[in-house]
């Protein structure tokens, strides 16, 4: 499709009409759920997740199946192209429309990239592993969770990935650098697509969508770039100029300025604020003071019946981890239905922050509140499959390394446990730069 030539072939015209409608349907916010998200935003307390959600928009006309949803979009585009062709018989070419489509796609893609860029530049997407995660066995994570937890151990790498996305996004904001930006997106988001496929991530469709946007944008300049770097042939520079009425010219700069301010500066600042004060993957409510650590369950009795340590016993607890925040996890051989999630949930509310508990087995995670007068912990299982698993335990701390928990864990059983802190050093934190004996 060379927009410089005046007359487009019939096939090109048909293809253009189809793709024009196809991409408009995917890019324009036509899904009512988008407006639900928009109106849910409280202007006084905008959270970076609010903007992230808007940037992550993808229309879902059919909720049950992403594939049927896509078929519907294709079908609508075909119908639209037929109708359009029937009405518009005089058209020779759509160079102007093609230009505006590219503008739309450029900004759409830049918005999407920025959304993910900043939650990596401020390493929010994959925080450093929690104490529970450090004490979870490798095979007890799902493949997707391993991807994220592993990324969390190297903030430097995560920040680097964020900057690559941000640079690509910025390059998309100018016509002259669009092809370079789009090429970077093809490599980067192409890799994200393969990662999602391999690690069973939930963004296969979305990343494919972004790759297609980049492909369309790169295609515009592909021929000339190939000419100079592959074939060694003469290449004609792009001389296309959009027809814009003089009174609208100023609006171009205003809109661009607003976009840059809102997406790069405002959203960037909001993610930084979130990183400092309320990251979306780590709860912020403080736990019991001075208790964080990993504890061996030295004694465990249930209904006054002492159970010896047995790693196969589904009832006896083996290990308890207290985080700095108000979460504790209990390891036993009791079954866990995996609370699986493989897309980014960006919520400011502690209870919704399931990153620490999802994608793992053999450990039950409880968010708790403390009644420090009666020395009680009110526990709620964070896993969506166990909504009824909530109980209250009395706690005592005879010394700094010991915690005694007792109480009813359900309607019939009462337990008494003595937890002793394990003085644990982690190779992951100690590192391999010096000889280690651990």
């Amino acid at each position, binding site marked *: 499709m060379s927009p410089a030539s005046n007359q487009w072939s019939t096939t090109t015209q048909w293809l253009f009409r189809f793709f024009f409608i196809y991409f408009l349907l995917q890019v324009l916010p036509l899904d009512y759920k988008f407006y639900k998200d928009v109106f849910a935003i409280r202007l006084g307390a905008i959270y970076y997740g609010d903007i992230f959600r808007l940037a992550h928009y993808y229309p879902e006309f059919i909720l049950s199946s992403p594939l049927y949803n896509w078929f519907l979009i294709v079908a609508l585009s075909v119908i639209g192209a037929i109708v359009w062709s029937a009405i518009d018989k005089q058209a020779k070419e759509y160079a102007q429309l093609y230009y505006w489509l590219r503008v739309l796609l450029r900004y759409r893609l830049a918005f999407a990239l920025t959304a993910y860029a900043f939650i990596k530049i401020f390493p929010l997407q994959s925080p450093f*592993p929690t104490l529970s*995660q450090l004490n979870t066995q490798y095979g007890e994570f799902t493949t997707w969770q391993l991807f994220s*937890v592993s990324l969390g*151990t190297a903030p430097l790498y995560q920040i680097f990935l964020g900057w690559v996305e941000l640079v690509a996004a910025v390059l998309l904001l100018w016509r002259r650098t669009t092809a370079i930006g789009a090429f970077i997106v093809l490599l980067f988001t192409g890799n994200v697509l393969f990662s999602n496929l391999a690690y069973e991530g939930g963004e296969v469709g979305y990343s494919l969508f972004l790759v297609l946007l980049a492909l369309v944008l790169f295609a515009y300049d592909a021929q*000339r770039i190939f000419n100079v770097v592959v074939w*060694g042939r003469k*290449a004609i520079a792009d001389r296309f100029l959009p027809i814009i009425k003089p009174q609208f010219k100023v609006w171009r700069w205003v809109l661009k300025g607003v976009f840059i301010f809102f997406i790069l500066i405002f959203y960037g600042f909001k993610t930084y604020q979130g990183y400092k004060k309320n990251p979306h993957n780590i709860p912020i409510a403080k736990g019991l003071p001075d208790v964080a650590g990993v504890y061996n369950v030295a004694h465990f009795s249930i209904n006054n019946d002492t159970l010896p340590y047995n790693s196969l016993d589904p009832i006896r607890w083996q290990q308890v981890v207290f985080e700095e925040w108000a979460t504790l996890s209990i390891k036993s051989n009791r079954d866990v239905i995996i609370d699986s999630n493989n897309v980014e949930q960006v919520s400011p509310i502690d209870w919704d922050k399931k990153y620490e508990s999802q994608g793992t087995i053999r450990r039950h995670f409880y968010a708790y509140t403390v009644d420090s007068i009666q020395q009680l912990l009110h526990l709620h299982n964070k896993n969506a499959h166990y909504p009824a698993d909530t109980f209250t335990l009395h706690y005592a701390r005879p010394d700094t390394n010991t915690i005694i928990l007792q109480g009813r864990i359900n309607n019939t059983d009462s337990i008494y446990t003595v937890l002793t802190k394990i003085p644990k050093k982690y190779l992951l934190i100690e590192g391999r730069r010096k*000889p280690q004996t*651990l």
Partner: protein
Amino acid sequence: MANVLTDLQTSPATDANGSTHTGSLADANKYPYIWSPLQKTAFRIVFVFFIIMCIPGSASWYKTVFNIDWTHLHYRDLYDVARFNPIRIWTVRSESGRWGLASWSNWVAILGIAIVIGLIWGWVDNKRKSYNIAYYWLQAIVRYRAGIGIIGFGFTKLFPVQMPYPSISLLNNNFGDLTGHKVFWLSIGIVPWYQVFTGVVEVAAGAFLLFRKTTAFGAALLIGALASITVVNLGYDGGVHVYASYFVLLGSFVLAYYIPRVYRLLILKQDVTPIDIVPNFSEKWQRWLRIGIKSLLVFLFLIVLFYLQWMNYLYDPYKQPSSPGVKTLRGYYHVKEFKINDRIIPEDPTDTTRWQEVIFEKWSTLAYKQNRKVPLELSNGGGGPMKDINKTFEVSGVAGGRRVFHYLADTVNQVLYLQDKNIMTAKKKIHSRGGGDDIINPAYVVKDSSKFWIPIEALRNIGDENKTIHPRASSTRRNRVFGVGLVDEGRQKMILSYQTEDGGKRVYLRGINEDKDSIFVVLDRVDRKYAVSESTLSAGSY
């Protein structure tokens, strides 16, 4: 190269130096046919710098390459040809010199030498107007160096053996008890198809660099992939950041050739007529030599290496032991009973003597967990070892009381002869830190087999370890290592007899542990569930 500009009147033209240029000449004045003094000075330095960077700089590389038996190759032979560093001039002995910024000091030193030589060259060769042909050759050398180097790496991913799927003992190791390096390598190991994809990218980048028309895309892919790997190595302490960034540097030099034309085309919006000056291979022998060298390299590094790596993947995976383990002894076992010197020790994760779980891998490894500190083996678990005992990926960078033993099994008398795979616990003074080739100190070779720790009769029952893999994967390299004979490096040892019931569902082990205590262990196999997906591609045959 006299009077280059007159040559530009005709196309294609041959200039006095015997070079041709292709493409239309309308744009010719923009091309640096006559170079400015600054360009020439810079070029001489850059030329010397990259030539030094592309020449193998260590004596051991030449020794390895001259010792290769080209009639009976191992993948590692070609890998070693492709993998080399330039001469080492300046090493900073500090943490930063190994893991941080100062580890690039050698490049600075090479640049320093290049500046000196480049300036002397300029003084000698001060009449020269341009270096177009020299630039062509430098570009060719650098892209071949980069291309072959990355292909060597790429095939270990294309056949996914560089990052093995975690062994059972690694699946049961705490996440926090691994090094960062291990965490990242395993995160690729769990998705073998993704590893194949990254291998395809690397091999494609390398293959693209071998052909002029695809060079720009090869260089762009190389920069993208290896920049990411460089940061991975810095972020996870992988330790090969300098070598990874070496390819970014080479790729950037190669791509730099194309940047001016793309810049003019896209950013300045000028029409561009690219002109590539290439040597004019007018003599027949020149053309044959060119095709011959190119074909040989493509054959060796794309076809032969493909085959060798495939065999390696099938029968003798790079970092994974290749001898099959005893068939009835496989899986994850719960330690039902544990006696040491006839004293029963109940299950208790804080006890420092009791084994907490026992794992028999599908290969010749027994692993267990014990609450006891040991000096850790912190290598990358790579290198080119031929012997299973030196394939240490399953133990390197692993803490948390994990003990990993290699065993030789006398299946007639049902006895396992075990040695700690962690070389750091060995009692003799060992210079190796693990994770390298099989370095066999002559002092450790046991000439008199009657003095070896494994009885002769048992050795006869165990058989030749070299022959445990399929003959298709055999090689002179492997034969040489095993040909040395019996070796005792003073590793920690156990001799345990085994008895199985119910096809290995219950196992009894009894014998002498590494501290010479007698132990008796009753094991029950557990069908352990994992959340991570099983491997979709399995290297090795067991």
